[in-house]
Protein backbone atom coordinates (compact mmCIF):
# COMPACT_ATOMS: atom_id res chain seq x y z
CA UNK A 1 0.00 0.00 0.00
CA UNK A 2 1.35 3.44 -0.98
CA UNK A 3 0.45 6.35 1.31
CA UNK A 4 0.92 10.15 1.39
CA UNK A 5 1.05 11.85 4.80
CA UNK A 6 0.35 15.51 5.63
CA UNK A 7 1.14 16.50 9.22
CA UNK A 8 2.74 19.77 10.32
CA UNK A 9 4.18 18.55 13.62
CA UNK A 10 7.62 17.16 12.76
CA UNK A 11 7.73 14.63 15.58
CA UNK A 12 4.31 13.23 14.73
CA UNK A 13 5.06 13.18 11.02
CA UNK A 14 8.24 11.19 11.57
CA UNK A 15 6.43 8.95 14.02
CA UNK A 16 3.68 8.21 11.52
CA UNK A 17 6.18 7.44 8.79
CA UNK A 18 8.03 5.11 11.16
CA UNK A 19 4.84 3.43 12.29
CA UNK A 20 3.49 2.81 8.79
CA UNK A 21 6.85 1.69 7.39
CA UNK A 22 7.41 -0.77 10.20
CA UNK A 23 4.04 -2.28 9.25
CA UNK A 24 5.18 -2.70 5.66
CA UNK A 25 3.29 0.29 4.28
CA UNK A 26 5.09 2.36 1.68
CA UNK A 27 5.06 6.05 2.67
CA UNK A 28 5.79 7.76 -0.66
CA UNK A 29 5.58 11.34 0.62
CA UNK A 30 5.36 13.03 4.01
CA UNK A 31 4.64 16.78 3.83
CA UNK A 32 3.81 19.54 6.32
CA UNK A 33 1.24 21.67 4.50
CA UNK A 34 -1.89 21.47 2.36
CA UNK A 35 -0.36 22.78 -0.89
CA UNK A 36 2.48 20.29 -0.82
CA UNK A 37 -0.08 17.60 -0.05
CA UNK A 38 -2.21 18.45 -3.09
CA UNK A 39 0.94 18.62 -5.23
CA UNK A 40 2.11 15.19 -4.06
CA UNK A 41 -1.10 13.43 -5.11
CA UNK A 42 -0.78 13.58 -8.94
CA UNK A 43 2.93 12.90 -8.62
CA UNK A 44 2.69 9.75 -6.50
CA UNK A 45 -0.85 8.50 -7.16
CA UNK A 46 -1.07 6.95 -3.65
CA UNK A 47 -3.55 4.30 -2.56
CA UNK A 48 -4.48 6.42 0.45
CA UNK A 49 -3.77 9.69 2.21
CA UNK A 50 -3.45 10.40 5.93
CA UNK A 51 -3.72 14.04 6.94
CA UNK A 52 -4.08 16.35 9.90
CA UNK A 53 -7.04 18.76 10.04
CA UNK A 54 -4.98 21.69 11.31
CA UNK A 55 -2.23 22.70 8.96
CA UNK A 56 -0.41 25.99 8.36
CA UNK A 57 -0.87 28.84 7.81
CA UNK A 58 -4.02 29.45 9.86
CA UNK A 59 -4.14 26.11 11.73
CA UNK A 60 -7.92 25.90 11.54
CA UNK A 61 -9.32 23.47 8.97
CA UNK A 62 -6.84 23.61 6.06
CA UNK A 63 -6.45 19.83 6.20
CA UNK A 64 -10.19 19.34 5.97
CA UNK A 65 -10.46 21.63 2.95
CA UNK A 66 -7.43 19.92 1.38
CA UNK A 67 -9.18 16.57 1.86
CA UNK A 68 -12.34 17.81 0.17
CA UNK A 69 -10.28 19.29 -2.68
CA UNK A 70 -8.24 16.06 -3.06
CA UNK A 71 -11.48 14.08 -3.34
CA UNK A 72 -12.71 16.49 -5.99
CA UNK A 73 -9.54 16.01 -8.04
CA UNK A 74 -9.28 12.27 -7.38
CA UNK A 75 -12.78 10.95 -6.78
CA UNK A 76 -12.84 8.03 -4.40
CA UNK A 77 -9.25 8.57 -3.16
CA UNK A 78 -9.26 6.95 0.30
CA UNK A 79 -8.47 9.61 2.91
CA UNK A 80 -8.00 9.19 6.63
CA UNK A 81 -8.29 12.51 8.45
CA UNK A 82 -6.72 12.87 11.90
CA UNK A 83 -7.59 15.63 14.32
CA UNK A 84 -6.82 16.89 17.81
CA UNK A 85 -10.57 17.03 18.44
CA UNK A 86 -13.59 15.88 16.45
CA UNK A 87 -16.71 17.73 15.37
CA UNK A 88 -19.68 16.07 13.76
CA UNK A 89 -20.01 19.00 11.34
CA UNK A 90 -16.50 18.28 10.05
CA UNK A 91 -17.53 14.66 9.51
CA UNK A 92 -20.51 15.87 7.49
CA UNK A 93 -18.17 17.93 5.24
CA UNK A 94 -15.98 14.91 4.61
CA UNK A 95 -18.88 12.59 3.84
CA UNK A 96 -20.66 15.17 1.67
CA UNK A 97 -19.56 13.70 -1.67
CA UNK A 98 -21.43 10.50 -0.86
CA UNK A 99 -18.57 8.17 -1.88
CA UNK A 100 -16.88 5.83 0.59
CA UNK A 101 -13.25 5.61 1.55
CA UNK A 102 -13.32 8.25 4.26
CA UNK A 103 -12.03 8.03 7.78
CA UNK A 104 -12.19 10.64 10.52
CA UNK A 105 -10.36 9.80 13.73
CA UNK A 106 -8.93 11.45 16.81
CA UNK A 107 -5.16 11.69 16.50
CA UNK A 108 -4.48 9.65 19.59
CA UNK A 109 -6.10 6.57 17.97
CA UNK A 110 -2.75 5.96 16.24
CA UNK A 111 -1.49 4.68 19.60
CA UNK A 112 -3.56 1.52 19.21
CA UNK A 113 -1.59 0.47 16.15
CA UNK A 114 -3.65 -2.59 15.32
CA UNK A 115 -6.94 -0.72 15.37
CA UNK A 116 -5.41 2.18 13.47
CA UNK A 117 -4.18 -0.13 10.71
CA UNK A 118 -7.56 -1.81 10.61
CA UNK A 119 -9.21 1.60 10.17
CA UNK A 120 -6.76 2.51 7.40
CA UNK A 121 -7.42 -0.79 5.63
CA UNK A 122 -11.19 -0.30 5.88
CA UNK A 123 -10.86 3.18 4.39
CA UNK A 124 -8.68 1.88 1.56
CA UNK A 125 -11.31 -0.84 1.01
CA UNK A 126 -13.88 1.90 0.38
CA UNK A 127 -15.42 1.77 3.85
CA UNK A 128 -16.25 4.62 6.20
CA UNK A 129 -14.58 4.99 9.57
CA UNK A 130 -15.87 7.49 12.08
CA UNK A 131 -14.37 8.06 15.48
CA UNK A 132 -16.56 6.74 18.33
CA UNK A 133 -16.32 10.27 19.70
CA UNK A 134 -18.11 11.66 16.62
CA UNK A 135 -20.79 9.01 16.87
CA UNK A 136 -21.40 9.64 20.55
CA UNK A 137 -21.73 13.37 19.77
CA UNK A 138 -24.38 12.46 17.23
CA UNK A 139 -26.19 10.16 19.61
CA UNK A 140 -26.53 12.46 22.62
CA UNK A 141 -28.23 15.57 21.31
CA UNK A 142 -31.68 14.14 20.97
CA UNK A 143 -35.24 15.37 21.38
CA UNK A 144 -37.63 14.03 24.02
CA UNK A 145 -39.78 12.14 21.52
CA UNK A 146 -36.76 10.64 19.76
CA UNK A 147 -37.23 7.12 18.41
CA UNK A 148 -33.65 6.46 19.58
CA UNK A 149 -35.13 6.26 23.07
CA UNK A 150 -37.05 3.17 22.05
CA UNK A 151 -33.82 1.28 21.30
CA UNK A 152 -32.51 -1.25 23.79
CA UNK A 153 -28.98 -0.64 25.14
CA UNK A 154 -27.69 -3.47 22.92
CA UNK A 155 -29.36 -1.95 19.88
CA UNK A 156 -27.78 1.43 20.65
CA UNK A 157 -24.39 -0.27 20.79
CA UNK A 158 -25.00 -1.89 17.41
CA UNK A 159 -26.23 1.42 15.96
CA UNK A 160 -23.08 3.21 17.18
CA UNK A 161 -20.85 0.55 15.61
CA UNK A 162 -22.79 0.80 12.35
CA UNK A 163 -22.25 4.55 12.38
CA UNK A 164 -18.54 4.06 13.02
CA UNK A 165 -18.53 2.06 9.78
CA UNK A 166 -18.22 -1.56 10.92
CA UNK A 167 -19.65 -4.44 8.89
CA UNK A 168 -22.03 -6.99 10.40
CA UNK A 169 -19.22 -9.49 10.76
CA UNK A 170 -16.96 -6.98 12.53
CA UNK A 171 -19.79 -5.89 14.85
CA UNK A 172 -20.45 -9.55 15.73
CA UNK A 173 -16.75 -9.97 16.52
CA UNK A 174 -16.58 -6.81 18.65
CA UNK A 175 -19.72 -7.61 20.65
CA UNK A 176 -18.89 -11.35 20.82
CA UNK A 177 -22.24 -12.45 19.42
CA UNK A 178 -23.22 -14.35 16.29
CA UNK A 179 -23.64 -12.58 12.98
CA UNK A 180 -27.31 -13.64 12.83
CA UNK A 181 -27.88 -11.96 16.19
CA UNK A 182 -26.35 -8.76 14.78
CA UNK A 183 -28.58 -8.99 11.70
CA UNK A 184 -31.63 -9.37 13.97
CA UNK A 185 -30.63 -6.27 16.02
CA UNK A 186 -30.10 -4.30 12.85
CA UNK A 187 -33.49 -5.35 11.52
CA UNK A 188 -35.10 -4.12 14.77
CA UNK A 189 -33.17 -0.84 14.69
CA UNK A 190 -34.17 -0.08 11.10
CA UNK A 191 -37.78 -0.92 11.89
CA UNK A 192 -37.86 1.27 15.00
CA UNK A 193 -36.17 4.23 13.28
CA UNK A 194 -38.22 3.81 10.10
CA UNK A 195 -35.11 3.48 7.91
CA UNK A 196 -35.22 1.63 4.58
CA UNK A 197 -33.14 -1.57 4.77
CA UNK A 198 -29.75 -1.10 3.09
CA UNK A 199 -26.73 -3.29 2.56
CA UNK A 200 -23.79 -3.25 4.94
CA UNK A 201 -21.53 -0.79 3.09
CA UNK A 202 -20.97 2.93 3.01
CA UNK A 203 -24.57 3.68 2.08
CA UNK A 204 -25.71 2.18 5.35
CA UNK A 205 -23.39 4.49 7.27
CA UNK A 206 -24.76 7.48 5.37
CA UNK A 207 -28.34 6.42 6.08
CA UNK A 208 -27.61 5.98 9.78
CA UNK A 209 -25.77 9.29 9.97
CA UNK A 210 -28.50 11.08 8.06
CA UNK A 211 -30.98 9.81 10.58
CA UNK A 212 -28.80 10.75 13.55
CA UNK A 213 -28.25 14.26 12.22
CA UNK A 214 -31.93 14.82 11.45
Amino acid at each position, binding site marked *: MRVVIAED*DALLREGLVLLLR*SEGIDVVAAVDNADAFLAALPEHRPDAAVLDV*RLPPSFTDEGLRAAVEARRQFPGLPILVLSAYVEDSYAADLLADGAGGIGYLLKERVGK*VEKFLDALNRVVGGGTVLDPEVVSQLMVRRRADDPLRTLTPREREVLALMAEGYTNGAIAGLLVVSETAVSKHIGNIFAKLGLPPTDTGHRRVLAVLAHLKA
Partner: protein
Amino acid sequence: MTRFRAWLATAFAEMWRGARFLVTGVPLALASLWLIPVVVAVTLVGWPAAPSAARGLRRWTAIARRRVGAFTGSPVHQAYPPLEGGLGDQLKTVLTDRSLRRDLTWLVTNGLSGTVLGFLSAGLPLAAVNALAIPFYWQAFPADQPVASPYPVTSWGGALAMPLVALGYAALALFGIPRLARWNAGWSRRLLSPAPGIRLTEQVAELTASRAAALEAHGAELRRIERDLHDGTQNRLVGVVMHLGIAERALRRDPAGALPMLLRAQDAAADALTELRQVVRTIYPPVLAERGLDGAAAALVAACPVPCTITASGLGRAPAAVESAAYFVIAEALTNIAKHSGAREAEVRLSTRGGETLVIEVHDDGLGGADESAGSGLLGIRRRIVAFGGVTELTSPEGGPTVLRAELPCGL
Protein backbone atom coordinates in the same frame (compact mmCIF):
# COMPACT_ATOMS: atom_id res chain seq x y z
CA MET B 1 23.26 74.09 49.26
CA THR B 2 22.95 71.10 47.00
CA ARG B 3 19.30 70.94 47.89
CA PHE B 4 18.86 74.57 46.88
CA ARG B 5 20.64 73.86 43.61
CA ALA B 6 18.40 70.90 42.92
CA TRP B 7 15.35 73.07 43.69
CA LEU B 8 16.65 75.81 41.44
CA ALA B 9 17.24 73.35 38.60
CA THR B 10 13.68 72.04 38.87
CA ALA B 11 12.27 75.57 39.08
CA PHE B 12 14.21 76.58 35.98
CA ALA B 13 13.05 73.49 34.10
CA GLU B 14 9.45 74.22 35.03
CA MET B 15 9.76 77.87 34.08
CA TRP B 16 11.32 76.90 30.78
CA ARG B 17 8.51 74.44 30.06
CA GLY B 18 5.84 76.96 31.03
CA ALA B 19 7.44 79.78 29.07
CA ARG B 20 7.78 77.56 26.03
CA PHE B 21 4.11 76.66 26.23
CA LEU B 22 2.99 80.27 26.65
CA VAL B 23 5.34 81.79 24.09
CA THR B 24 4.52 79.23 21.40
CA GLY B 25 0.88 80.02 22.21
CA VAL B 26 1.29 83.63 21.12
CA PRO B 27 0.95 83.02 17.36
CA LEU B 28 -2.14 80.91 18.06
CA ALA B 29 -3.62 83.62 20.27
CA LEU B 30 -2.85 86.41 17.80
CA ALA B 31 -4.31 84.42 14.94
CA SER B 32 -7.36 83.73 17.12
CA LEU B 33 -7.81 87.49 17.52
CA TRP B 34 -7.71 87.87 13.75
CA LEU B 35 -10.33 85.17 13.43
CA ILE B 36 -12.82 87.07 15.61
CA PRO B 37 -13.80 89.52 12.82
CA VAL B 38 -14.29 86.50 10.53
CA VAL B 39 -16.66 84.97 13.07
CA VAL B 40 -18.53 88.25 13.40
CA ALA B 41 -18.80 88.60 9.62
CA VAL B 42 -20.12 85.07 9.28
CA THR B 43 -22.64 85.72 12.06
CA LEU B 44 -23.88 88.96 10.53
CA VAL B 45 -23.96 88.32 6.80
CA GLY B 46 -22.34 85.02 5.85
CA TRP B 47 -24.91 82.50 7.12
CA PRO B 48 -24.39 79.98 4.31
CA ALA B 49 -20.70 79.85 5.21
CA ALA B 50 -21.44 78.99 8.85
CA PRO B 51 -20.99 75.19 8.53
CA SER B 52 -17.65 75.62 6.76
CA ALA B 53 -16.60 78.17 9.38
CA ALA B 54 -17.62 75.71 12.12
CA ARG B 55 -15.52 72.99 10.50
CA GLY B 56 -12.57 75.37 10.32
CA LEU B 57 -13.03 76.31 13.97
CA ARG B 58 -13.08 72.63 14.95
CA ARG B 59 -9.76 72.10 13.20
CA TRP B 60 -8.38 75.27 14.73
CA THR B 61 -9.30 74.30 18.29
CA ALA B 62 -7.97 70.78 17.64
CA ILE B 63 -4.51 72.33 17.41
CA ALA B 64 -5.02 73.96 20.78
CA ARG B 65 -6.29 70.67 22.23
CA ARG B 66 -3.15 68.88 21.11
CA ARG B 67 -0.97 71.60 22.64
CA VAL B 68 -2.78 71.57 25.96
CA GLY B 69 -2.83 67.75 25.94
CA ALA B 70 0.91 67.55 25.34
CA PHE B 71 1.63 70.16 28.03
CA THR B 72 -0.51 68.60 30.75
CA GLY B 73 0.20 65.03 29.76
CA SER B 74 -3.40 63.88 29.42
CA PRO B 75 -5.39 64.27 26.23
CA VAL B 76 -8.17 66.85 25.85
CA HIS B 77 -11.22 65.13 24.43
CA GLN B 78 -13.42 66.60 21.78
CA ALA B 79 -16.98 65.72 20.88
CA TYR B 80 -18.94 67.50 18.18
CA PRO B 81 -22.24 66.63 16.61
CA PRO B 82 -21.62 65.51 13.01
CA LEU B 83 -22.17 68.20 10.37
CA GLU B 84 -24.28 66.29 7.88
CA GLY B 85 -27.24 66.73 5.58
CA GLY B 86 -28.39 69.82 3.73
CA LEU B 87 -27.47 73.40 4.52
CA GLY B 88 -30.56 73.78 6.73
CA ASP B 89 -29.66 70.74 8.82
CA GLN B 90 -26.07 71.86 9.11
CA LEU B 91 -27.05 75.37 10.17
CA LYS B 92 -29.33 73.89 12.81
CA THR B 93 -26.46 71.75 14.08
CA VAL B 94 -24.18 74.78 14.23
CA LEU B 95 -26.80 76.84 16.10
CA THR B 96 -27.47 74.16 18.71
CA ASP B 97 -23.89 73.02 19.18
CA ARG B 98 -22.89 73.84 22.75
CA SER B 99 -19.29 72.86 22.09
CA LEU B 100 -19.14 75.49 19.35
CA ARG B 101 -20.19 78.20 21.79
CA ARG B 102 -17.52 77.04 24.23
CA ASP B 103 -14.99 77.09 21.41
CA LEU B 104 -15.94 80.68 20.57
CA THR B 105 -15.59 81.68 24.21
CA TRP B 106 -12.14 80.12 24.18
CA LEU B 107 -11.26 81.90 20.92
CA VAL B 108 -11.97 85.32 22.41
CA THR B 109 -10.58 84.81 25.92
CA ASN B 110 -7.47 82.97 24.79
CA GLY B 111 -6.89 85.43 21.97
CA LEU B 112 -6.60 88.21 24.55
CA SER B 113 -5.03 86.48 27.53
CA GLY B 114 -2.79 84.15 25.50
CA THR B 115 -1.10 87.12 23.85
CA VAL B 116 -0.56 88.91 27.16
CA LEU B 117 0.67 85.78 28.97
CA GLY B 118 3.00 84.87 26.11
CA PHE B 119 4.70 88.29 26.09
CA LEU B 120 4.80 88.30 29.88
CA SER B 121 6.50 84.93 30.09
CA ALA B 122 9.09 86.00 27.53
CA GLY B 123 9.48 89.47 29.10
CA LEU B 124 9.99 88.56 32.76
CA PRO B 125 13.18 86.52 32.28
CA LEU B 126 14.48 89.08 29.77
CA ALA B 127 13.75 91.88 32.23
CA ALA B 128 15.75 90.03 34.88
CA VAL B 129 18.72 89.69 32.54
CA ASN B 130 18.38 93.32 31.51
CA ALA B 131 18.33 94.48 35.12
CA LEU B 132 21.59 92.63 35.73
CA ALA B 133 23.14 94.37 32.74
CA ILE B 134 21.99 97.92 33.58
CA PRO B 135 24.90 98.70 35.98
CA PHE B 136 27.18 98.19 32.96
CA TYR B 137 25.45 100.39 30.44
CA TRP B 138 23.24 102.95 32.26
CA GLN B 139 25.85 105.67 31.80
CA ALA B 140 25.65 105.35 28.03
CA PHE B 141 22.17 106.87 28.10
CA PRO B 142 21.69 110.66 28.12
CA ALA B 143 20.72 112.09 31.50
CA ASP B 144 17.42 113.50 30.23
CA GLN B 145 16.44 110.07 28.75
CA PRO B 146 17.65 107.60 31.38
CA VAL B 147 17.13 103.85 31.36
CA ALA B 148 13.79 103.32 33.06
CA SER B 149 13.24 99.72 34.13
CA PRO B 150 11.31 99.88 36.33
CA TYR B 151 12.56 103.23 37.72
CA PRO B 152 14.78 105.86 36.06
CA VAL B 153 18.41 105.07 36.72
CA THR B 154 20.29 108.30 37.13
CA SER B 155 22.92 107.45 39.74
CA TRP B 156 25.28 104.66 40.76
CA GLY B 157 23.07 104.07 43.77
CA GLY B 158 20.12 103.34 41.54
CA ALA B 159 22.26 101.23 39.19
CA LEU B 160 23.79 99.10 41.95
CA ALA B 161 20.34 98.36 43.35
CA MET B 162 19.50 96.72 40.02
CA PRO B 163 20.65 93.16 40.98
CA LEU B 164 17.94 93.25 43.65
CA VAL B 165 15.42 94.22 40.96
CA ALA B 166 16.76 91.35 38.81
CA LEU B 167 16.22 89.01 41.73
CA GLY B 168 12.63 90.26 41.96
CA TYR B 169 12.01 89.69 38.25
CA ALA B 170 13.65 86.26 38.44
CA ALA B 171 11.51 85.29 41.43
CA LEU B 172 8.40 86.48 39.62
CA ALA B 173 9.41 84.48 36.54
CA LEU B 174 10.33 81.34 38.45
CA PHE B 175 7.19 81.31 40.58
CA GLY B 176 4.78 82.98 38.21
CA ILE B 177 5.39 81.47 34.77
CA PRO B 178 4.72 77.82 35.63
CA ARG B 179 1.54 78.86 37.47
CA LEU B 180 0.37 81.09 34.63
CA ALA B 181 1.05 78.28 32.14
CA ARG B 182 -0.89 75.78 34.25
CA TRP B 183 -3.70 78.29 34.72
CA ASN B 184 -3.90 78.97 30.99
CA ALA B 185 -3.78 75.24 30.15
CA GLY B 186 -6.37 74.55 32.86
CA TRP B 187 -9.09 76.84 31.67
CA SER B 188 -8.30 76.09 28.03
CA ARG B 189 -8.87 72.43 28.88
CA ARG B 190 -12.17 73.23 30.58
CA LEU B 191 -13.45 75.27 27.65
CA LEU B 192 -12.14 72.94 24.95
CA SER B 193 -13.41 69.76 26.62
CA PRO B 194 -16.92 68.71 25.63
CA ALA B 195 -19.75 70.15 27.74
CA PRO B 196 -20.58 67.90 30.73
CA GLY B 197 -23.64 66.27 29.18
CA ILE B 198 -21.86 65.61 25.92
CA ARG B 199 -18.88 64.18 27.75
CA LEU B 200 -21.18 61.71 29.49
CA THR B 201 -22.66 60.53 26.20
CA GLU B 202 -19.17 60.12 24.87
CA GLN B 203 -18.12 58.20 27.97
CA VAL B 204 -21.01 55.78 27.53
CA ALA B 205 -19.90 55.18 23.95
CA GLU B 206 -16.31 54.72 25.15
CA LEU B 207 -17.39 52.26 27.80
CA THR B 208 -19.43 50.26 25.32
CA ALA B 209 -16.49 50.17 22.94
CA SER B 210 -13.98 49.20 25.61
CA ARG B 211 -16.32 46.52 26.90
CA ALA B 212 -16.50 45.05 23.41
CA ALA B 213 -12.72 45.33 23.14
CA ALA B 214 -12.35 43.55 26.48
CA LEU B 215 -14.57 40.71 25.34
CA GLU B 216 -12.65 40.51 22.08
CA ALA B 217 -9.34 40.42 23.95
CA HIS B 218 -10.71 37.71 26.21
CA GLY B 219 -11.83 35.70 23.18
CA ALA B 220 -8.43 36.04 21.54
CA GLU B 221 -6.81 34.86 24.77
CA LEU B 222 -9.06 31.78 24.90
CA ARG B 223 -8.25 30.95 21.28
CA ARG B 224 -4.55 31.24 22.02
CA ILE B 225 -4.82 28.89 24.99
CA GLU B 226 -6.85 26.42 22.96
CA ARG B 227 -4.23 26.43 20.23
CA ASP B 228 -1.33 26.11 22.63
CA LEU B 229 -3.00 23.11 24.23
CA HIS B 230 -4.17 21.38 21.06
CA ASP B 231 -1.21 22.02 18.77
CA GLY B 232 1.47 21.87 21.45
CA THR B 233 0.78 19.80 24.51
CA GLN B 234 -1.72 17.44 22.92
CA ASN B 235 0.52 16.72 19.94
CA ARG B 236 3.32 15.79 22.31
CA LEU B 237 0.99 13.38 24.11
CA VAL B 238 -0.13 11.89 20.79
CA GLY B 239 3.58 11.41 20.12
CA VAL B 240 3.83 9.53 23.42
CA VAL B 241 1.02 7.10 22.66
CA MET B 242 2.15 6.70 19.06
CA HIS B 243 5.70 5.73 20.00
CA LEU B 244 4.41 3.48 22.77
CA GLY B 245 2.19 1.86 20.12
CA ILE B 246 5.16 1.32 17.82
CA ALA B 247 7.18 -0.06 20.74
CA GLU B 248 4.36 -2.43 21.62
CA ARG B 249 4.31 -3.80 18.07
CA ALA B 250 8.10 -4.04 18.04
CA LEU B 251 8.16 -6.00 21.31
CA ARG B 252 6.21 -8.76 19.61
CA ARG B 253 8.47 -9.02 16.60
CA ASP B 254 11.87 -7.58 17.46
CA PRO B 255 12.26 -6.58 21.14
CA ALA B 256 15.56 -4.79 20.48
CA GLY B 257 13.75 -2.31 18.23
CA ALA B 258 11.38 -1.32 21.04
CA LEU B 259 13.91 0.56 23.16
CA PRO B 260 14.47 3.57 20.85
CA MET B 261 10.70 3.96 20.57
CA LEU B 262 10.32 3.91 24.35
CA LEU B 263 13.01 6.58 24.65
CA ARG B 264 11.23 8.73 22.11
CA ALA B 265 7.98 8.31 23.97
CA GLN B 266 9.77 9.38 27.15
CA ASP B 267 11.17 12.50 25.47
CA ALA B 268 7.77 13.39 24.06
CA ALA B 269 6.22 13.03 27.52
CA ALA B 270 8.89 15.33 28.99
CA ASP B 271 8.22 17.87 26.22
CA ALA B 272 4.50 17.68 26.91
CA LEU B 273 5.16 18.53 30.56
CA THR B 274 7.35 21.50 29.64
CA GLU B 275 4.79 22.88 27.24
CA LEU B 276 2.00 22.39 29.72
CA ARG B 277 3.96 24.33 32.30
CA GLN B 278 4.48 27.17 29.85
CA VAL B 279 0.82 27.33 28.91
CA VAL B 280 -0.20 27.37 32.57
CA ARG B 281 2.24 30.20 33.24
CA THR B 282 0.60 32.35 30.57
CA ILE B 283 -2.86 31.65 32.02
CA TYR B 284 -2.07 32.09 35.71
CA PRO B 285 1.51 32.53 36.87
CA PRO B 286 2.09 30.07 39.74
CA VAL B 287 4.27 32.64 41.52
CA LEU B 288 1.04 34.59 42.17
CA ALA B 289 -0.51 31.65 43.95
CA GLU B 290 2.58 31.06 46.02
CA ARG B 291 3.77 34.53 46.91
CA GLY B 292 0.82 36.80 46.30
CA LEU B 293 0.73 39.88 44.12
CA ASP B 294 3.45 41.76 46.00
CA GLY B 295 5.84 38.82 45.79
CA ALA B 296 5.09 38.22 42.14
CA ALA B 297 5.43 41.93 41.32
CA ALA B 298 8.72 42.03 43.22
CA ALA B 299 9.97 39.23 40.98
CA LEU B 300 8.96 41.27 37.90
CA VAL B 301 10.65 44.37 39.29
CA ALA B 302 13.83 42.41 40.00
CA ALA B 303 13.88 41.13 36.42
CA CYS B 304 13.35 44.59 34.88
CA PRO B 305 16.44 45.85 32.99
CA VAL B 306 15.72 49.43 34.18
CA PRO B 307 16.61 49.89 37.89
CA CYS B 308 13.27 49.63 39.60
CA THR B 309 11.89 49.69 43.11
CA ILE B 310 8.61 48.49 44.51
CA THR B 311 6.49 49.62 47.44
CA ALA B 312 3.48 47.59 48.40
CA SER B 313 1.31 48.59 51.32
CA GLY B 314 -1.71 46.97 52.85
CA LEU B 315 -2.21 44.40 50.14
CA GLY B 316 -4.50 41.55 51.05
CA ARG B 317 -5.29 38.70 48.72
CA ALA B 318 -7.55 39.67 45.85
CA PRO B 319 -9.45 37.24 43.60
CA ALA B 320 -7.10 35.28 41.34
CA ALA B 321 -8.42 36.92 38.17
CA VAL B 322 -7.77 40.42 39.57
CA GLU B 323 -4.28 39.53 40.81
CA SER B 324 -3.52 37.93 37.49
CA ALA B 325 -4.70 41.02 35.57
CA ALA B 326 -2.62 43.26 37.87
CA TYR B 327 0.40 41.04 37.36
CA PHE B 328 0.18 41.19 33.57
CA VAL B 329 -0.43 44.96 33.67
CA ILE B 330 2.74 45.48 35.73
CA ALA B 331 4.66 43.13 33.46
CA GLU B 332 3.45 44.99 30.36
CA ALA B 333 4.19 48.41 31.87
CA LEU B 334 7.73 47.39 32.84
CA THR B 335 8.30 45.94 29.37
CA ASN B 336 7.19 49.26 27.88
CA ILE B 337 9.54 51.18 30.18
CA ALA B 338 12.46 48.95 29.25
CA LYS B 339 11.69 49.17 25.53
CA HIS B 340 10.58 52.75 24.91
CA SER B 341 10.98 55.15 27.83
CA GLY B 342 14.74 55.57 28.05
CA ALA B 343 14.18 55.86 31.81
CA ARG B 344 17.02 55.71 34.32
CA GLU B 345 14.78 54.45 37.06
CA ALA B 346 11.25 53.29 37.62
CA GLU B 347 9.00 52.60 40.55
CA VAL B 348 6.01 50.36 41.09
CA ARG B 349 3.57 51.27 43.86
CA LEU B 350 0.84 48.90 44.94
CA SER B 351 -1.83 49.89 47.40
CA THR B 352 -5.48 49.44 48.13
CA ARG B 353 -8.19 51.99 48.61
CA GLY B 354 -10.72 51.04 51.23
CA GLY B 355 -9.72 47.43 50.74
CA GLU B 356 -11.98 47.35 47.71
CA THR B 357 -9.84 48.77 44.96
CA LEU B 358 -6.36 47.72 44.02
CA VAL B 359 -4.29 50.72 42.90
CA ILE B 360 -1.30 50.12 40.67
CA GLU B 361 1.06 53.00 39.91
CA VAL B 362 4.08 52.67 37.68
CA HIS B 363 6.37 55.73 37.51
CA ASP B 364 9.37 56.27 35.31
CA ASP B 365 11.69 59.21 34.69
CA GLY B 366 11.94 58.59 30.96
CA LEU B 367 11.19 60.69 27.91
CA GLY B 368 7.43 60.79 28.37
CA GLY B 369 5.13 61.43 25.45
CA ALA B 370 3.84 57.87 25.60
CA ASP B 371 1.21 57.53 22.91
CA GLU B 372 -1.59 55.09 23.50
CA SER B 373 -2.50 54.85 19.87
CA ALA B 374 1.04 54.02 18.78
CA GLY B 375 1.82 50.76 20.54
CA SER B 376 -0.45 47.94 21.55
CA GLY B 377 1.15 47.64 25.00
CA LEU B 378 -0.79 50.49 26.59
CA LEU B 379 -3.91 49.46 24.77
CA GLY B 380 -3.51 45.93 26.11
CA ILE B 381 -3.17 47.31 29.62
CA ARG B 382 -6.30 49.40 29.25
CA ARG B 383 -8.24 46.43 27.91
CA ARG B 384 -7.23 44.19 30.76
CA ILE B 385 -8.20 46.83 33.31
CA VAL B 386 -11.48 47.68 31.61
CA ALA B 387 -12.41 44.00 31.56
CA PHE B 388 -12.62 44.25 35.36
CA GLY B 389 -14.49 47.55 35.39
CA GLY B 390 -11.35 49.43 36.38
CA VAL B 391 -9.90 52.68 35.09
CA THR B 392 -6.52 53.46 33.61
CA GLU B 393 -4.94 56.88 33.67
CA LEU B 394 -1.81 57.70 31.78
CA THR B 395 0.06 60.93 32.38
CA SER B 396 3.00 61.31 30.08
CA PRO B 397 3.92 64.87 29.11
CA GLU B 398 6.72 65.36 26.60
CA GLY B 399 9.95 65.21 28.59
CA GLY B 400 8.38 62.98 31.25
CA PRO B 401 7.87 61.80 33.82
CA THR B 402 5.36 59.12 32.88
CA VAL B 403 2.88 57.82 35.41
CA LEU B 404 0.58 54.93 34.67
CA ARG B 405 -2.14 54.57 37.25
CA ALA B 406 -4.64 51.75 37.15
CA GLU B 407 -7.44 51.03 39.57
CA LEU B 408 -8.86 47.54 39.72
CA PRO B 409 -12.01 46.83 41.72
CA CYS B 410 -11.34 43.68 43.73
CA GLY B 411 -14.94 42.60 43.79
CA LEU B 412 -14.77 41.96 47.53
